[in-house]
């Protein structure tokens, strides 16, 4: 009962906002080209999602036809770039972060360079990325990798450096080798930090993918909303924006579920 009431109060404000928005449009108080009504956006969104052709069995399976809509293609394109960039950036940052957190020597060697590069926003790499990689997926993935790299790196370093020394003392007392200490104590103790880093990295990857698609690629959600602007299709712009929001929310929810599951031992997650 309480749960339903809670859920109901959660949709109250969005519904009211939609109603106001719809009212503004219906009353003609705003120009429909600048701000289309929610209903109009929904209709456009459906058209964007729907397959373009009529179903034709000779062209392939029904399932394939279902996924032939423009929006699905764009969303999958963006998702692909996000995941690839996140994988490359995070994949490089994790071992480097572990090394820098564990070894003072590695930290001393890499930290100065990292501190100089870290404040440069990934967006600033756009000109170079196009010079180096041309157009298409490679520059986009490169930019996303940079965006995902630093959050994972910084959090991994902090995670390893903040391992409570009592655990290491217990490990030594039990006779653990350096390798065992690392794999069975330091690594699991650092995972809450690493997960936080990964979640921030995923958020950054999402920002960067939209920007990079506006510049270097000719599909994807970022490209599509910029293209829609050329035609003054503001309903399509908003439909694209909502899709980006939903996709981001979906990925963040998945990551949060995954970390709650993997870190079920962790005290801090009891409430969340």
């Amino acid at each position, binding site marked *: 009962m309480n749960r339903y009431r809670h859920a109901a109060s959660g949709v109250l404000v969005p519904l009211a906002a939609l109603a106001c928005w719809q009212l503004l449009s219906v009353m003609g108080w705003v120009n429909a080209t600048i701000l289309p009504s929610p209903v109009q956006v929904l209709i456009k969104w459906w058209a964007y999602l729907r397959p373009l052709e009529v179903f034709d069995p000779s062209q392939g399976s029904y399932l394939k036809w279902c996924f032939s809509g423009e929006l699905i293609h764009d969303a999958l394109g963006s998702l692909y770039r996000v995941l690839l960039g996140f994988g490359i950036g995070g994949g490089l940052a994790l071992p480097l972060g572990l090394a820098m957190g564990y070894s003072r020597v590695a930290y001393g060697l890499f930290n100065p360079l990292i501190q100089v590069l870290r404040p440069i926003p990934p967006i600033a790499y756009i000109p170079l990325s196009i010079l180096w990689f041309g157009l298409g997926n490679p520059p986009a993935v490169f930019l996303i990798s940079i965006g995902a790299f630093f959050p994972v790196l910084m959090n991994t370093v902090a995670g390893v450096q903040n391992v409570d020394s*009592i655990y290491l*003392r217990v490990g*030594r007392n039990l*006779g653990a080798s350096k390798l065992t200490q690392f794999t069975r104590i330091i690594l*699991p*103790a650092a*995972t809450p930090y690493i997960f936080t880093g990964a979640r921030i990295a995923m958020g950054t990857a999402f920002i960067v993918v939209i920007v990079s698609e506006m510049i270097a690629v000719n599909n994807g959600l970022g490209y599509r909303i910029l293209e829609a602007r050329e035609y003054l299709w503001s309903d399509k712009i908003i439909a694209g924006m909502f899709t980006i929001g939903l996709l981001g929310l979906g990925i963040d929810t998945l990551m949060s579920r995954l970390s709650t599951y993997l870190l079920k031992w962790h005290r801090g997650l009891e409430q969340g």
Partner: protein
Amino acid sequence: MNDAASHISIRGVDKVFASGGQEVHALQAIDLEIARGEFVCLLGPSGCGKSTLLNAVAGFSLPTAGVITVDGTTIVSPGPDRGMVFQEYALFPWMTVEQNVAFGLQIKGTAKAAIEAKVSELLLMLNLQDFRKRYPKDLSGGMRQRVAIARVLALDSPIMLMDEPFGALDALTRRNLQDEVLRLWMELKKTVLFVTHSIEEALYLADRTVVMTYRPGTLKRDIQVDLPRPRDVASPEFNLLKKELSQLLMEEQSRHNQAEFRGAAVD
């Protein structure tokens, strides 16, 4: 006591820490022989170096001068022959109860079936069998220290070091675990070196209670406790000893307080 009989032998041990440009003499000229199977409590006010001495025996921080030997071999590093139960809840939070207990055996390279059997035996011994799959965060303080004890027992080490293990527990849980430790000690015939600042705990548990002085930590008094077990904390004999130890500890506590006042004046 002759050399052959002593299990742990501490001779002429000094420990000097550098702290903020000043040298702190934590331990000075400590000589202590502990026999095999003996239960010895180190008692003293905070800052008397009792944990420092325990850490030296554990091998975490080696003495500045002097030697500590176990069975005649000088200690140079920590090792599973001297299992330690820590003051804080030092269980690995990412491991379940059984994984925590099994960890030492896995390091040793014990066969899987043997680990399984040993872990089950220990969990049964410490009344933890219903909590095998739980994580430490779901256990009470007393339960966690039971797991910590089981983890050390898994090593089959002849020596058990305990660093104020029950300091954070409520009185009932504490007594309960003290009885448990006594039972295990008698059953498994371990040599126990137990650090505490509670006079009653020391008298309830130990064969011998060693009182330490405040900085520099030296041995002030070595008292044989010959009361029969289980000990009655309300008996006149117990309270006589308690009074004597109280007196000794009070002297050290006042030296501690004076030192703190002096420190405050300098600051």
